[in-house]
């Protein structure tokens, strides 16, 4: 079982990602070793997070957003703990937690009892995350509706300039989906790996990163775990790593973090090695 876009991360298909000829190479030791993600604010924009799940631990803050045509901007916000409607937000939070055990997790619930106004609420969730100075935002959901192209474009640019890392699962639809489609986000599909540190950089985007998301064990409702597949489980692996990097190197910009991730991707060309420019030939 493979989600769409994951084919490009199959063994033998993935070309080498270009290396930077730095005086001394970027290493995992330097990038994230020893970091727990402590002090990094990570938002999970999803179906809610079950703070009682042992794999999740403490949730630092939570807000539930719902569509209400009479509210200002048509969205009503309720601060305080909430349940996870599906189990999915809990799955994402648990994956992030497994990589960045001391990150501050925030649950931004944007899904609810009806789909009407869903895109508006989803955009409001992203706006909330930017306004509340989240540093990493996991978005394992998307909308394919063209009506939202401009709204998300503006928000994604705002996040980029505010150094908010948006980590987005790409979906299966043939057409564009937002916000995974924009160049400044960290777009992620599932690769075949099970080791959470074995992620890939795709030298032929639009999808930039491949991370574990096929048949992986994830936390679910009621303290349970299930074995699931989807690009939506790949994104939180990258979100967790980004949180670890930021825990050690606060204040990095999205392009700096992408540079670090590329350098440490499993298909990165050896720095300065004979293969470092092989990507130019492979494409």
């Amino acid at each position, binding site marked *: *079982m*493979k*989600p*769409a*876009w*994951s*084919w490009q991360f199959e063994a033998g298909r993935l070309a080498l990602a270009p290396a930077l000829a730095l005086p001394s190479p970027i290493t995992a030791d330097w990038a994230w070793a020893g970091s727990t993600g402590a002090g990094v604010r990570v938002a999970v924009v*999803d*179906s809610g997070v079950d703070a009682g799940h042992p794999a999740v631990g403490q949730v630092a803050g939570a807000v539930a957003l719902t569509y209400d045509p009479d509210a200002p901007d048509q969205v009503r916000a309720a601060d305080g703990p909430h349940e996870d*409607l*599906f*189990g*999915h937000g809990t799955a994402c939070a648990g994956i992030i937690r497994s990589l960045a055990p001391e990150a501050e997790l925030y649950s931004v619930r944007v*899904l*609810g*009892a*009806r*789909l*009407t106004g*869903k895109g508006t609420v989803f955009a409001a969730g992203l706006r909330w995350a930017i306004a509340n100075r989240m540093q990493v935002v996991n978005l*394992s*959901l*998307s*909308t*394919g*509706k*063209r009506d939202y192209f401009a709204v998300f474009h503006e928000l994604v640019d705002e996040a980029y300039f505010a150094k908010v890392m948006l980590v987005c*699962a790409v*979906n*299966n*639809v*043939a*057409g*564009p*989906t937002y916000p995974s489609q924009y160049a400044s986000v960290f777009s992620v599909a599932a690769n075949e790996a099970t080791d959470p540190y074995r992620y890939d950089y795709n030298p032929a985007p639009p999808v930039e990163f491949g991370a574990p998301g096929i*048949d992986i064990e994830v936390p*679910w*409702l*009621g303290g*349970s*775990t*299930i*074995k*699931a*597949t*989807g*690009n*939506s489980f790949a994104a939180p692996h990258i979100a967790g790593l980004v949180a670890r990097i930021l825990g050690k190197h606060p204040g990095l910009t999205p392009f700096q973090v992408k540079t670090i991730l590329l350098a440490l991707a499993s298909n990165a060309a050896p720095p300065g090695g004979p293969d470092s420019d092989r990507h130019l030939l492979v494409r």
Partner: protein
Amino acid sequence: MPDPPERLLERVATLAADLGPALAPIGQLELLRSITAAARELFDAAACSLALLDEAQETLTFHVASGAGAQEVVGQRVPVDRGIAGWVVSSGQPVAVADVARDPRFAAEVAEATGYVPRSVLAMPLQTERDMLGVIELLDQRDDAPAGRRDMELLGLFANQAALAIEASRVFSSLGQALFKAVGLAAAGDRDLASALDELARHAPDPAAELAELAGAFARLGQVGPAERAAATRLVREFLAYATGDRRLP
């Protein structure tokens, strides 16, 4: 004594509006049935079911199913804020779960409703770039299914086709209904087709209202000169090209 012609026209229009969807070349239900049967065969699953969102976008209703538990699942309604199908339409993301029985709430709800608890579920949203329509689910695929490891990607392409077909069939039948209703209105009263369509647009819910309004504009266009018609056609094509981002259209 036979009906006067205008009364007859009105009655025919009402009848056609009601019968249209049922007599369309391919009815919606038949289309959905063929989609699930094909998907089940293609992906070698024990069952395949398809649920569509209701108008209020609060509930998913299973309209068709094929395979194990099919009879029981048809007609089942699930709220969009519960379960795997709910998450898929809410998030726009497909998901596959290998062992659904380990999700205690899901297992209990499904068992109660259908008497058949699958081992695995692969759920894919049915959506176009205009709207989320529903979800298609494959239950208990055989491990050695021919499509194999690329199932999720292939089902995504399949779902895309299905969603476009469902959307096209809906637009076709709503436009047909709007036109027939307008003919009825025009025949019953002393107004022309264009103003009858306008009247319909004022009272119909979106997107039927938009279609009726558009049809009204076209009815008026039909009465103006050929040069104006050509100019209007050109404008519409230009706009379409702009709106869809397809520069090849004009």
